[in-house]
């Protein structure tokens, strides 16, 4: 059984997925063994051996996030806090969509009593999935409400006058049939092609088959192709293996397509939020990586000049906070537009503005190709 990826629910980068699937299909047990071996050495407390195995593995596959993650864990358990922080930080730069490295950074920062950094890292972890953020905010509202009730009982207040009822935020899309149906998605892997073709949309093997509308009975398709939320990672491997089969038997198109689209909207929104977070955290790598190759810098600057400019304006600030609200996303195939209100606050400066980001899908990521102020 292939090792379940140790990842989050967002689509993995194309390259990674290639790697992963190639591994699972050609040598299903190799990675499982390696991760499991290192994992059990760690659990047994045999850190030098675990580290040696991990390093050996990484020599051949330096970008592998799971082994790097394990390495970070080993460094943590052996007291190499600085190294561990560096390890996890690098993983967050390369894979900003994974919550686990952020979580572990928070643990390390907290161990150093750097609680502000710990908090920021945990907020990043939560924002890798917008539903976490919603649930977290809702939880905060509930705590506030419960506190208010307890205070009323303590102070024998009538309870009528305990402030505004918090309206909890509803998560409106999981995989909903009521999303607008987009034009059939470019079937990146329409053909019942070998696994490689299915790669780009692995958690959604059904989606690429959308164009063929035959409602063939497919054993319950993981009909949440783009659901970043539930189910995805643990079952990615088997699904990926199933993909060639699924491609041959087209899944019911109707639910799949709008579902995929609803998923795309969520992906775009998540990408926008991640961009804002990177900006707030002054994480230049992640911030600049939010902008695609075809990004059109404002004012006719070259890409390089623009990057220098942004770096200077961001790194130079001691504190940045970028808050987004009223995010409206419209997706058309591999293009999308995100419009929102941006509240930018840095040091003593506060600016609110309406922003528009033109986004494009590159592989599994949505990147910014144009950024403008105004609707």
């Amino acid at each position, binding site marked *: 059984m292939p090792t379940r990826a140790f990842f989050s629910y967002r689509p993995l980068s194309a390259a990674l997925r290639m790697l992963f699937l190639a591994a699972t299909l050609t040598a299903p047990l190799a990675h499982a063994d390696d991760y499991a071996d290192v994992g059990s050495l760690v*659990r047994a407390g045999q850190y030098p051996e675990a580290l040696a195995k991990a390093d050996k593995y990484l020599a051949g596959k330096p970008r592998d996030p799971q082994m790097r993650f394990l390495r970070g864990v080993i460094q943590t358990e052996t007291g190499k806090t600085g190294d561990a922080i560096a390890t996890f930080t690098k993983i967050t730069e390369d894979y900003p969509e994974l919550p686990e490295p952020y979580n572990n950074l928070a643990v390390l920062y907290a161990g150093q009593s750097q609680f502000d950094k710990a908090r920021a890292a945990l907020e990043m972890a939560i924002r890798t999935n917008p539903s976490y953020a919603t649930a977290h905010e809702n939880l905060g509202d509930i705590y506030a409400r419960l506190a208010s009730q307890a*205070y009323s009982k303590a102070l024998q207040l009538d309870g009528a006058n305990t402030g505004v009822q918090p309206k909890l935020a509803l998560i409106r899309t999981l995989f909903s049939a009521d999303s607008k149906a987009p034009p059939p998605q470019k079937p990146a892997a329409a053909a019942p092609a070998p696994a490689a073709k299915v790669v780009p949309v692995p958690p959604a093997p059904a989606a690429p088959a959308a164009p063929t509308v035959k409602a063939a009975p497919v054993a319950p398709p993981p009909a949440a192709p783009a659901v970043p939320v539930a189910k995805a990672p643990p079952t990615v491997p088997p699904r990926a293996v199933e993909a060639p089969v699924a491609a041959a038997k087209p899944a019911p198109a109707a639910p799949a397509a709008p579902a995929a689209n609803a998923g795309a909207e969520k992906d775009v929104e998540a990408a926008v939020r991640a961009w804002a977070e990177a900006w707030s955290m002054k994480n230049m790598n992640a911030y600049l990586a939010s902008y695609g190759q075809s990004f059109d810098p404002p004012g006719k600057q070259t890409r390089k000049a623009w990057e220098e400019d942004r770096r200077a304006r961001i790194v130079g600030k001691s504190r940045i906070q970028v808050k987004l609200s009223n995010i409206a996303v419209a997706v058309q195939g591999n293009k999308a537009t995100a419009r929102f209100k941006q509240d930018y606050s840095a040091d003593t400066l506060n600016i609110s503005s309406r922003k528009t980001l033109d986004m494009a899908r590159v592989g599994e990521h949505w990147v910014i190709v144009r950024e403008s102020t105004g609707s």
Partner: protein
Amino acid sequence: MFLSMASWLLAPPDAHAKDPVRQPAKARAHPPATKKPAAKIRTRPAPVARPPALPVVRDGEAEARLIEVYRLAGQARHREALRKAEALVRDHPNFQLAQLVYGDLLAGQIRAVNTLGDVPAPTAKAAAPLLAELRQESQLRLQALRERPAPGMVPSQFLALSPRNKHAIAVDASRSRLYLFENTAAGLRLLADYYISVGKSGVEKAAEGDLRTPLGVYFISSNLDPKSLRDFYGSGALPINYPNQLDVKRGKTGSGIWLHGTPPAHFSRAPLSTDGCVVLANPDLERIIKTVEIRNTPVVIANSLKWVAPQSLKSELSAFDAVLQGWHQAKTSGDLARLTAWYTPDFTSYGKTLTEWTPLMQAELKQLGGRDIQIKDVSYLRWTDSADTMVVTFGELIKGSNTGRTKRQYWTRQGSQWKIFFEGAI
């Protein structure tokens, strides 16, 4: 809040158990504190009418749980503190201080909490007096648990207790604390101590309606059936004998000073909130009611108790023993004049002046006919304020007889001499 590195750090690749989406965080189950027994069907009336069995709350338990919450919060173990606070208010929804702490711990999940009862400003303003009282209650409870009498020390008023005094009570009004003692062969042993409330106007009752708790040495005079009382009094009431004979001598008025419990809406009351009574939480009062004997249980109420080592009282004790001996010998001598010298001119005995009382004493002496009087089970309670008073209780037997009477005397020190200003059978 604070993270435990061990539990969070190592997330093995194939155990995404912490994935909150796949396995939504479970609400922690709080099993009920105790179970209610099933109702029984009786075919005959029960011999003792019992209220429906409720979860038994032990005396002092709620406070101990609250202190545990404080302790956990102080160690930044906020989640555990929150869980315990939640359980505490579930079991005692009328424990307002616990609700306040629970509110703080909830609020602390989402924002900084800077003070006990960190309520929003408008609420703080509207409920300012109540908030102040709860903070005071909290402070007094904590203080009483931090500043404890050293083991073996006793309040200085208990000069000597007799075997008849199986238990004793001392109240420290400024600390809002009541101390319950057992009188063992080895001396007074502290059994328990509880948070209490006293009069709205403080202490040193002098007059009817002054909303003050009296200061002095008293005895529990009766035990009132809670069913005959309004539920305002909670689990019951133990009246004490205010005004005692010293109070009467000083012209103090008022009555109805009880130890009693709390109404259903309140687990405990504010430190200064009663009409003069000493108020306890119901479980604490229940323990006292179950434990003490009426009439033989002294209740010392002081603004601030002074705790001393029993040995340090020995010299004072033997000095007064000698005084009582002197009186005893005078009585046994049959010499009225010699006996009368032990009494103050303003002596009273249940309304009778010395002049009225002397003939009665004369008759008693005649009846003795020279037989010895035996004195046993003597207790001395010393009360020092603007005067020195000794409340002496003993059993008086005619030697050879089996029966006798219990007598109480109130002595006052005049210069270096002690004299009796009240004597009577009780």
